[in-house]
């Protein structure tokens, strides 16, 4: 820790670990990510709804894939990122990492919910049912519970330092359990032979479909980063209220 980690060009990484240096940086970066997300989303939706061909098996209903799959990817990835920052926060004792974990959780929960919701809407026309106890659906539902548990724990603790560290432990315990949960659910499902329908709808995907989906996935990434930065700024303001540096911010002196 004493030896600063230098990136190429001599930028000290830990410089931005302090809320007061990160706050303006996040403010500068945020609009870029928001606009990139909006542009990518517009492009992805355009390709998804107007350019991509109609699926010969599922008709137009398949087009929900452009929201469903990126949301599902993001929901899982955000939990891993949360666990990463939780680990960093516990090891280096950086407050900003913990703030990042709290900032990411609602976005992760939102994407998990969107993935489940769009999945239900997709399931109805293609499988004829809103919900099946398929391994992937079930583990996504459990992931939503894990997000809720994390947020409930943080909301239940008044002392921020304790809330941060307790949440970090829970996020790490959760991330260790996710593969165990996933494989047990998968195994349970194959034994029960519950789902007679497969999620892998089309064996090969048209190039335009794939590009639309990837654009939407990138948009989801950018959106997540932008909202996380936005939320982390709010958290910084909330926790640092009364700090001297806040008074010298350009938006405060205006």
């Amino acid at each position, binding site marked *: 820790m004493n030896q600063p980690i230098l990136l190429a060009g001599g930028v000290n990484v830990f410089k931005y670990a302090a809320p007061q240096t990160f706050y303006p940086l996040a403010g500068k970066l945020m609009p870029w990510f928001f606009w990139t997300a909006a542009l990518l989303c517009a492009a992805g939706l355009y390709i998804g709804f107007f350019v991509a061909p109609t699926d010969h098996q599922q008709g137009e209903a398949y087009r929900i894939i452009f929201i469903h799959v990126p949301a599902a990817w993001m929901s899982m990835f955000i939990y891993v990122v949360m666990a990463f920052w939780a680990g960093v926060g516990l090891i280096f004792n950086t407050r900003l990492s913990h703030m990042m974990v709290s900032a990411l959780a609602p976005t992760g929960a939102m994407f998990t919910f969107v993935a489940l919701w769009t999945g239900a809407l997709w399931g109805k026309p293609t499988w004829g049912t809103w919900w099946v106890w398929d391994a992937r659906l079930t583990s996504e539902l*459990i992931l939503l*519970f*894990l997000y*809720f*548990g994390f947020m*409930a*724990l943080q909301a*239940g*603790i008044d002392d921020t*330092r*304790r809330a941060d*560290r*307790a949440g970090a*432990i*829970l996020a*790490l*315990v*959760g991330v*260790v*359990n996710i593969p*165990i*949960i996933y494989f*047990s*659910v998968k*195994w*349970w499902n194959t*034994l029960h032979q519950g789902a007679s329908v497969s999620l892998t709808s089309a064996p090969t995907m048209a190039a335009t479909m794939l590009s639309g989906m990837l654009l939407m996935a990138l948009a989801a990434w950018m959106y997540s980063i932008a909202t996380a930065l936005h939320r982390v700024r709010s958290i910084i303001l909330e926790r640092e209220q009364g700090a001297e540096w806040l008074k010298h911010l350009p938006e405060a002196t205006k």
Partner: protein
Amino acid sequence: MGALLRAVIRRDLLLAWRRRSDVATVVLFFIIVVSLFPLGVGPEPDLLRKIAPGIIWVAALLACMLSLQHMFASDHADGALDQMLLAAAPLGMIVAARAFAHWLISGLPLVILSPILAIQFDLSPELSPVLTLSLLLGTPILTLIGAIGAALTLGLRGGGMLLALLVLPLYIPVLILGAGAVDAASAGLGADAHLLLLAAQLILTGTFAPWAVSAALRISAE
């Protein structure tokens, strides 16, 4: 080290003996929940036989949850927990001993009762030992994972509901493997694979959970 572990286990057992009604509550809860299901779904023996392992396992899960809140609470209130945090012995060892004592008090009675409840559901004599064995392997995992949740929610308002929200999703693999063992045995597939996986998870949790519990306790008692 051995003397310390023995002392910790003996202390917890003695405390439980002095508060026998707490232990009885958990056991009664388990029996009542299991007995409610036939009233809810109807008394057809075929159906009951089919759902028995799942019901007994879910009831065991809930009964474990119920007892978890008391795991560290009174020690936290009277300062005994601080002594354990300050002790020269590694906290993980103390936590492991306490989890073991807690399992003896709240997990083992459920394991012992399960064959009797299995009779209520007309589970065949070959399947009943599988259920008991799966509970024997699974309930310590419930105690260990639950201890993490109990340590994290120590002294919080609404701790009980919060604990359920944190811990129940993590219990899912145990439920699947435990109830699945009986299902697999009744389908003629053999329960070995399920029971071995359950044992593997017990070893894994037994190795890492005390470590996570100690970290959580240090955070909560700060």
